[in-house]
């Protein structure tokens, strides 16, 4: 049942050992919080799987780019082949500025600014070693207990769902013409039907303030979307862009473009943080939505509380600027016009622009040109 470490016995041993005194420089407990910044892409602990990035169990002592079954960048594989092994020094260098250390790494993470954060998260990662650390430890610290508790919960859930197994449950048969399928239960519909409409249909009961949202955003969202929703690297921008919709490079954000607030709540709840969907509570999502309103200057008070009660009273500034498809009214689609077949242009045709001028066609690795977009 326990996929990692290999057996429960080793697991217990490893967990007991992880409070090793070798961690004096770093505090695993504090590191657990730092790891929130990594969580969207990495998992650790029992049952850890590759996500956007490789799982980080046992990463200390491992050659870079070698976790089985994960597709690394060529740069990371080359670094490993060049002898890079993760230890305190190499980890610190990588986490401080990943792209500076390994040019071409696909870890889209700006880096940890504080040395203490690096030390602490390293300590935390060391606590997920399958093999006992060199110096056996006596004490257990809080981090260990928390992890233990999580392991137990996970195990309990597995058993729970395994027991009544869908196959053994009895359901009401369909009464349709084919009599295929069966009636969905209320619990099933509640579990999946989480969509929200602009009129507020579907909103769960809950609430959260701008001030509540700020730390959640910092911990779970800012690594990709930036501290103020400005977007880190090429990750989506969530705030700003006012009055840019008619400019050369419009910035389409929640504040500048999105018509409805319900979309923010719905989308964040169903799919963010990227790589750890459905991990936020409804109150978290209210708080984050409030915070995103604040980042977009739609609300200005840090104490503003968004709830299912006042949700539909909030309107986004660009709501009025959407209208339904009217492409058929464009002049080039005018009906009944036979296309010209000969001498359609006055003289010989001239080339006015060439792709080679902008040449951004991928030829191999490492194209980092900006320009254009797909969405």
């Amino acid at each position: 049942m326990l996929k990692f470490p290999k057996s429960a016995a080793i697991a217990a041993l490893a967990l007991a050992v992880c409070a090793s005194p070798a961690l004096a420089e770093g505090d695993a407990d504090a590191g657990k919080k730092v790891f929130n910044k990594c969580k969207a892409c990495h998992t650790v602990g029992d049952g850890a799987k590759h996500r956007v990035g490789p799982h980080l169990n046992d990463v200390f002592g491992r050659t870079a780019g070698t976790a089985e079954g994960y597709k690394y960048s060529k740069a990371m594989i080359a670094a490993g082949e060049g002898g890079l092994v993760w230890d305190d020094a190499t980890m610190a260098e990588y986490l401080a500025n990943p792209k500076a250390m390994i040019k071409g790494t696909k870890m889209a993470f700006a880096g940890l600014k504080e040395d203490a954060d690096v030390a602490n998260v390293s300590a935390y990662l060391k606590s997920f070693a399958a093999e006992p650390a060199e110096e056996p430890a006596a004490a257990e610290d809080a981090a260990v207990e928390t992890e233990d508790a999580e392991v137990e919960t996970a195990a309990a859930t597995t058993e729970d769902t395994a027991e009544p197994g869908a196959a053994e449950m009895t359901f009401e048969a369909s009464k349709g013409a084919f009599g295929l399928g069966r009636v969905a239960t209320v619990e099933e519909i509640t579990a999946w039907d989480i969509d929200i409409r602009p009129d507020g249909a579907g909103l769960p009961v809950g609430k959260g303030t701008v001030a509540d949202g700020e730390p959640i955003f910092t911990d779970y969202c800012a690594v990709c979307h930036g501290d103020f929703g400005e977007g880190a690297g090429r990750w989506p921008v969530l705030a700003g862009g006012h009055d840019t919709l008619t400019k050369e490079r419009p910035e389409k954000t929640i504040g500048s473009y999105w018509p409805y607030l319900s979309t923010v709540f719905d989308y964040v709840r169903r799919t963010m943080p990227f790589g750890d969907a459905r991990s936020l509570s409804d109150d978290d999502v209210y708080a984050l939505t409030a915070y995103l309103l604040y980042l977009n200057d739609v609300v200005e008070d840090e104490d503003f509380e968004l709830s299912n009660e006042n949700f539909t009273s909030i309107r986004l500034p660009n709501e009025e600027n959407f209208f339904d498809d009217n492409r058929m009214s464009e002049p080039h689609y005018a009906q009944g016009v036979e296309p010209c077949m000969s001498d359609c242009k006055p003289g010989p045709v001239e080339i006015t622009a060439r792709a080679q001028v902008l040449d951004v066609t991928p030829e191999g690795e490492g194209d980092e040109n900006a320009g254009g977009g797909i969405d």
Partner: protein
Amino acid sequence: MVSKPDPKGTPRAASRRDFLKTGLMGGAAIAAGAGAAKAGGDPLITEIQDWNRYLGEGVDAAPYGTPSEFEAHVVRRNVPWLTADPVSSINFTPLHELDGIITPNGLCFERHHGGTAIINPADHRLMINGLVDTPLVFTMEDLKRFPRENRAYFLECAANGGMEWKGAQLNGCQFTHGMIHCVVYTGVPLRYLLEEAGVKTNGKWLLAEGADASAMTRSIPMEKALDDCLVAFKMNGEALRAEQGYPLRLCVPGWEGNMWVKWLRRLEVGDQPWHQREETSKYTDLLAEGKARRHTWVMDVKSVITNPSPQAPVTHGKGPLVISGLAWSGGGTIKRVDVSIDGGRNWREARIDGPSLPKALHRFYLDINWDGSDLLLQSRAIDDQGLVQPSKDQLRAARGGNSIYHNNGIQTWHVNTDGVVENVEVS
């Protein structure tokens, strides 16, 4: 795959490549190559070749076959700078390497918003809920007991050509037009499933939802859902590929690819659209005056010349040249395709060959005798509703430069006297 050394000790593939390279220089080179052979003939003919002497692999060498090793360059490709991470990104169908109208499954472009979900069909469920008489849950087994249909449809991402709105940018029809594929789907008409649940009279909209990490959702008007949508489990005869939504995807024929929800797990009936992220933040069309169109579902009448094109230059010199391309319309069939070799001054009707099916790709050809001079190749499709593919300038005049989606403007390729092809815009 085992390459047997030939008598001269060079691998066979290499000498074939050399031969192709010589071929690039045209007829003269072939004559010279033949001249070099002592016996006065092409050594590929006058000498006994390995593949003619030694036995090849037996059956089952590849229980699931793959393309010839000489086709290894025929792959989907992506443009890394377009997106932050390959998990929410796109790659492109190599249109310049394909012919006919059907796209092989492994070459169908991919667009995911949260990576490829891996789902055991035994664990997959499809729920219908909302404004229905009876909310239902189907297993894959249940779905396969409904009557099925087979239909060939193109699927085009609304953003196909989006990078070209502001001007010619990418050199290759794979990149300018490759967010499209055309596949024969096997599936159950969505109508049957909705009827099984019983849509209430105020059920005017449908929300389709995926089971992946992006839990993709799109609102679809009920009229379309009851018309020709399919809930498909097969593509080109075999199970859907994982990256195309295995085990179950929605087909919304003629409409933008994003609506063809992959890993389809839920259909909710409602009385209003939901205005989900992919129909507000994305897949809306910002016009010059700052206002935006929404619900622009139908994919416009469009065509592109796939050969010659920047990735497929003319290597054979003057003489007979096959100009080939694809045309399609979300409105129905293609009635006619015109081709111009002088940048749109004069047009000739191309020959449509192969099946002409509604909302499917159409293959066209124009067979010319190339005099070796510069060409400005264009194609222009006209669909069965009489809609004519517009020029890029007409589109920009109507919509401004800030649109991304629904770029169906006429593409121009410049073929120079050496046969090299470039993506250009013309007067």
